């Protein structure tokens, strides 16, 4: 099993998300995360999809996405160096624990405490999937009361993008 991060530019129209998620469900493709949002062009939205499967399946995923009429562009981000980030909100238990110790971990991960209650913190952490997993792992030892993750969003690095653009011309 491999993982792939794919950037999909789609028409900003109702039903497009259903077409994409329906494709994954209907064809039995594994989706690890999917994040949608606006782009620089208001008629388009951008989805970042992290999918997993063997090589043939991942190739199929890209082809099938390309086949959707409302999909304008599919970019396999692994073709170039890219940046991937995710944000998580974690409500961590502080009752009977050293708040200082928890703060230490929060600082090491450059995370932020957004809300403080007598028995819990709400912490915001951003970073790569591994960083967030590792942070969650540690917080788990204190006890996670609630958690919400955005899913990965990603983009190719600037310089390389320019280079390849030049090459294509």
């Amino acid at each position, binding site marked *: 099993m491999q993982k792939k991060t794919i950037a999909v530019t789609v028409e900003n129209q109702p039903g497009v998300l259903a077409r994409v998620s329906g494709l994954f469900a209907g064809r039995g493709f594994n989706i690890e995360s999917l994040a949608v949002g606006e782009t620089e062009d208001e008629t388009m939205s951008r989805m970042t999809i992290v999918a997993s499967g063997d090589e043939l399946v991942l190739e199929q995923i890209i082809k099938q996405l390309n*086949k959707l*009429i409302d999909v304008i562009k599919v970019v396999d981000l692994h073709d170039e160096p890219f940046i991937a980030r995710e944000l998580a909100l974690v409500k961590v238990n502080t009752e009977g624990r050293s708040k200082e110790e928890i703060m230490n971990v929060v600082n090491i991960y450059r995370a932020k405490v957004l809300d403080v209650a007598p028995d819990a913190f709400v912490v915001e952490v951003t970073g790569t999937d591994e960083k967030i997993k590792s942070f969650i792992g540690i917080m788990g030892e204190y006890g996670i009361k609630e958690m919400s993750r955005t899913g990965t969003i990603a983009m190719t690095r600037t310089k390389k993008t320019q280079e390849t653009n030049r090459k294509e011309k």
Partner: protein
Amino acid sequence: MNGARILFECLKKEGVDTIFGYPGGQALPMFDELYKMSDEIKIVLVRHEQGAAHMADGYARSTGRVGVCLATSGPGATNLVTGIATAYMDSIPMIAITGQVPTSLIGNDAFQEADITGITRPVTKHNYIVKDIKDLAQTVKNAFHIATTGRPGPVLIDMPKDVQVNETDFKYPDVPNLRGYKPNYEGHKLQLKKAAELIEKSERPILYAGGGVILSDSSKEIVELAEKLNVPVTTTLMALGCIAPDHPLNLGMLGMHGTRYANYAVQESDLIIAAGARFDDRVTGNVAEFAPHAKIIHIDIDPSSISKIVKVDVPIVGCTKTVLKALTSMVKKQEHKEWIGQVNEWKRDYPLTYIDSDTELKPQYIMEKLSELTKGEAIIATEVGQHQMWAAQFCRISKPRNWLTSGGLGTMGYGFPASIGAQAAYPDKLVICIAGDGSIQMNIQELATAVKYNYPVKVMIMNNGYLGMVRQWQELFWGKRYASSNIEASVDFVKIADAYGARGMLIEKKADVEKAMKEAFAYNGPVLMDFRVAREENVWPMVPTGASLSKMIEGGLA
């Protein structure tokens, strides 16, 4: 102009002259408009919306033009679904139009509301709900473009009632506005070169033609390439008719009920040139053991068909017609004497045959007689089951688009309405539906349509009193326990025909077959022919599911 009128003006611009449909509350403005336009667009009133969808499909397959069906919202729309899915699986260009509750009521569980775009999303190439009349003309333009280009397929347009009655100016756009849709027709030069090189090196090549060859009208190109290279051609169920049945290079159908020689040739080949085919599981048998010595060149308009089932060596994304032409011009003339010699030996040693009988009527005999009488010129639609496979094996389909069968979805109930659709397109051609006693009962109500418009289709029912294909599997793999597959004497077809005002015929003896056919074909009107065939005849040869193509079984023949 109101929305309903705009819709049909668009259809006229697209060359639509016939619509198969059934009315209802939320479609009334459209039907009213069609009533006023009756000398421009013919509406064929069916008896069940599924019939309308299959008729549109049969019309499309036989002509190459778009088939159009029309239904009301809710139950009318859901009744179309099997027909849309059938067209989708076989890549048939079709436009399905449905009425919908007014936009103000959508989402309220209004009377006869169904989320038909949601329901048909996985079985259409694309679908639309028109929420603003200003988008209507552009939507129709886009829909036709999508349905007919690239890998064709059905497109549904959902028409809320208010959009049908609202008014706006009509102007049909010249071009679609689809920035995310650009099918690629030309094969990549480098890939073509690689393919040509593989072909030059190959000693035992075989051409494997699929439905895409029919859809893109590249039958001529397949035959030209085959003849230049002197290589055998095997066709899928969907590609029957792309090469003449008696062409010396034609190996007939491959796969589960294909010919032994086609399957042997595939298994022994060192190069498969696949064109417009998709390596369906009924074709490959056990994928791991499929064509173990062969490199594969795969030509297809749909990139997602390539390397989906089998990893290929040279993928060529493009229109089969364009690519085959290019390839033919790039390769040198070849002979492949030894290979053709071997293939011909298989043809001689393992012919496609059956054991005829004087006491029982054999369906294969009927197919042979039919081909003899029609010289393979008739349009033949089939239902699904054993009779479909016998038709594929023993009917001589001499022209592309003369063979209408539900391959991908395998829809019982397809054949009869499809034959009506073809007859609507070609009033003067002989159109035959080869049916089973089970399948024909799935859309038998369309006899009323055939009679009403005098579509003189000839329905030949291979009446074995069984859901025969199910029974065959039960005989072979389920200990002869014929669970729910015996439908003996379920109905008197002659009386059914009579009740609908069609002609019914009962044929029980071999000696009567030819006479009955001649009589039926000469009759100016629909005929239902009830052939009482050998009840437990099986389709041979056969590759059991999961077995390799080289391991065909054959009962009672060997």
